[in-house]
């Protein structure tokens, strides 16, 4: 109990609350501007979190990302352009509602069910983490090896592209993680004699490149998004309570889908929204209304993406395996701040964990007033010319990467990964899978080598420990799934 009391005193300090407020405003603005994603908001925040105390740093990331995921709904509803990829699944639906003259309702659904979904996701995190942590305490390197391997495979299964390309992206990430001397043997690999490469590729500059620079590169070819017409919006929250009572099943299902997908490594809010929307349509009593400004799908997927965000922290905190691209960045910050992910986090730093839950709840409650203010100010923010926003992003990429290690080589890493991310995205290779590979490569190799040393070269312990055998079976199934699916399609006589 004293841990919880301590957590409250940690969070409710003026400086922490100010950081949460500022990060929230930042997240709302970045999320609302089309072309700037929630992941980019988080990546650009990292250099700043370097100079904050641990809880403030994590609090800034939690609140900025939660706000950005909601805020992506605003241009979706008003302009039919998703502000973040997590809003893309239901942008048409929200815009159809605006065209019916109900922009308040569409935005209100986004806000209200995002906040509720975020709180549900947090509760799921609180409920799932302790039992998983006590289980994970008994894990050895064999289990961690399979877990990391399974995480890599999950990311390739749920991506919205060809599974072969997703696996290739993931392998590319693993190859990047080979660079340097951070391997069990301590042998320099692929350094080409460069001292800068000896320490390996830093994750943060790579992520800034993939998620921020490549976005600016894309902006170079696309035309400026249209500006929203000036319109007076009525009450945002009017009618939301009635909708909550009318569609409890959709909301609950959306939250559950969000949690399940959030917990899966590598799959985050955007995939949760797509799945929740299509599930909603499939089980709806009136699927013909979908796409015409019907609230059902909006409720389900709006709940889903925010609960996925919170649930993504489950594998991140417990195993250091990112649940999505945002927690991929957060893991780096956790390590930096001495809050090393792992089951012991819940026993040794229990008050910090409770503080993290409290911040999640506070951020999702704060989302409602700040979100209403943001919706009211949206015509102003969406009018900011892109040519004044993107140059600042480029500058922040350069300075932020430099600030992470006072090293100009990091800026070159940012540029290189910007190009890699752009080319991959353009050709259908999912970058999230590569990011997962970069982050988890060392973990996979370290646990593999340690396990083989412990078993003296035998692979039997990889399969005969109970948890390891289950994880092994799941991993192999995930690995073979695309092969099955492909051969099934290939062998089945073509219909029509």
């Amino acid at each position, binding site marked *: 109990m004293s841990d919880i009391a301590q957590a409250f005193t940690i969070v409710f300090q003026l400086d922490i609350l100010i950081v949460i407020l500022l990060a929230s405003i930042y997240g709302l603005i970045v999320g609302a501007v089309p072309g700037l994603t929630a992941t980019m908001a988080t990546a650009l925040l990292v*250099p700043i979190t*370097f*100079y904050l105390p641990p809880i403030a740093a994590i609090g800034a990331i939690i609140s900025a990302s939660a706000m950005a995921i909601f805020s992506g709904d605003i241009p979706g509803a008003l302009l039919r*352009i998703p502000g973040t990829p997590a809003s893309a699944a239901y*942008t048409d639906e929200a815009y159809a509602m605006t065209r019916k003259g109900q922009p308040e309702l569409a935005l209100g659904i986004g806000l209200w069910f995002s906040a509720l979904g975020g709180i549900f996701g947090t509760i799921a995190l609180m409920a799932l983490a302790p039992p998983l942590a006590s289980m994970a305490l008994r894990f050895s390197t064999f289990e961690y090896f399979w877990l990391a391997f399974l995480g890599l495979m999950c990311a390739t299964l749920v991506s*919205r*592209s*060809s*599974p*072969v*390309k997703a*696996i*290739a992206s993931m*392998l*590319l990430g*693993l*190859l990047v993680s*080979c660079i340097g001397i951070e*391997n*069990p*043997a301590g*042998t320099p*690999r*692929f350094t080409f004699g460069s001292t800068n490469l000896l320490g390996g590729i830093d994750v943060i500059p790579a992520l800034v490149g993939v998620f921020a*620079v490549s976005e*600016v*590169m894309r902006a*170079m*070819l*696309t*035309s400026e*998004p249209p500006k929203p017409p000036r319109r007076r919006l009525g009450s945002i929250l009017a009618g939301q309570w009635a909708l909550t009572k009318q569609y409890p099943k959709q909301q609950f299902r959306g939250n559950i889908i969000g949690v399940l997908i959030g917990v899966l490594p590598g799959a985050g809010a955007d995939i949760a929204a*797509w799945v929740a929307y299509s599930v909603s349509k499939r089980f709806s009593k009136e699927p013909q209304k979908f796409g015409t400004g019907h609230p059902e799908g909006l409720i389900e997927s709006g709940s889903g993406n925010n609960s996925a965000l919170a649930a993504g922290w489950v594998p991140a905190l417990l195993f250091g395996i990112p649940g999505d691209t945002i927690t991929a960045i957060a893991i780096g910050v956790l390590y930096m701040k001495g809050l090393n992910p792992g089951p012991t986090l819940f026993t040794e730093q229990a008050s910090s964990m409770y503080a993290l839950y409290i911040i999640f709840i506070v951020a999702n409650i704060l989302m409602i007033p700040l979100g209403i203010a943001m919706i009211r100010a949206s015509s102003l923010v969406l009018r900011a010319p892109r*040519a*004044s926003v*993107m*140059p*600042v992003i*480029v*500058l*922040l990429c*350069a300075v932020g990467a*430099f600030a992470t290690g006072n090293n*100009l*080589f990091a*800026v*070159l890493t940012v*540029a*290189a990964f*910007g*190009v890699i991310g752009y080319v991959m995205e*353009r*050709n*259908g290779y999912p970058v999230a899978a590569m990011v997962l590979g970069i982050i988890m490569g060392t973990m996979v190799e370290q646990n*593999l*080598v340690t396990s*083989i*040393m412990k078993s003296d070269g035998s692979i039997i312990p990889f399969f005969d420990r109970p948890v390891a055998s289950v994880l092994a079976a799941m991993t192999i199934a995930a690995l073979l799934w695309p092969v099955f699916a*492909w051969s099934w*399609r290939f062998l089945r006589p073509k219909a029509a």
Partner: protein
Amino acid sequence: MHLSDRVTGLFLVALGGVAAYGGSRLPPVPGQQIGPEVFPMVVGLSLALCGGLIALGVGRRYEDEADVAMVSTPVEGTSASADLLPSRWRELRVLIPPALLIFYVYVVEALGFLPTAAAIVLVTALALGARLRLAIPVAIVAPLAINLLFLKLLRVPLPSGLLPLPWIGLP
């Protein structure tokens, strides 16, 4: 830079092959069953295999399905931009941001942060079609604001170079 699957697939075959070969040449560590060479070799060979499958068009069907689902969401509006340059050259504009970052790395120490940053902002803004009336004020204000933020709040000194501004607290 939209390349065919054949090109990207064959590139991955080559990359995987080179990585596996490079890995195989690493010295083993005595007494360790799995040396530093195993992981790059496994990853490299798998990458080459995937590249081969991609070049042969395996898995293409999934992408088509995702494309159909995406068609209704407008993400890009390239056609609206009235550019006179041929499309091949136009696409090279995407290289401006990374080129500016490389420019930053090699110039910032000599020139100082403010002038380098101003140049970066100016070029990016103009490349995005801004008029000078917008680009010049942004190029002056944004570097100053970022410099103050990093110096005062985060205490990261940025190179002052040719343009020290001691009167506003920049060394």
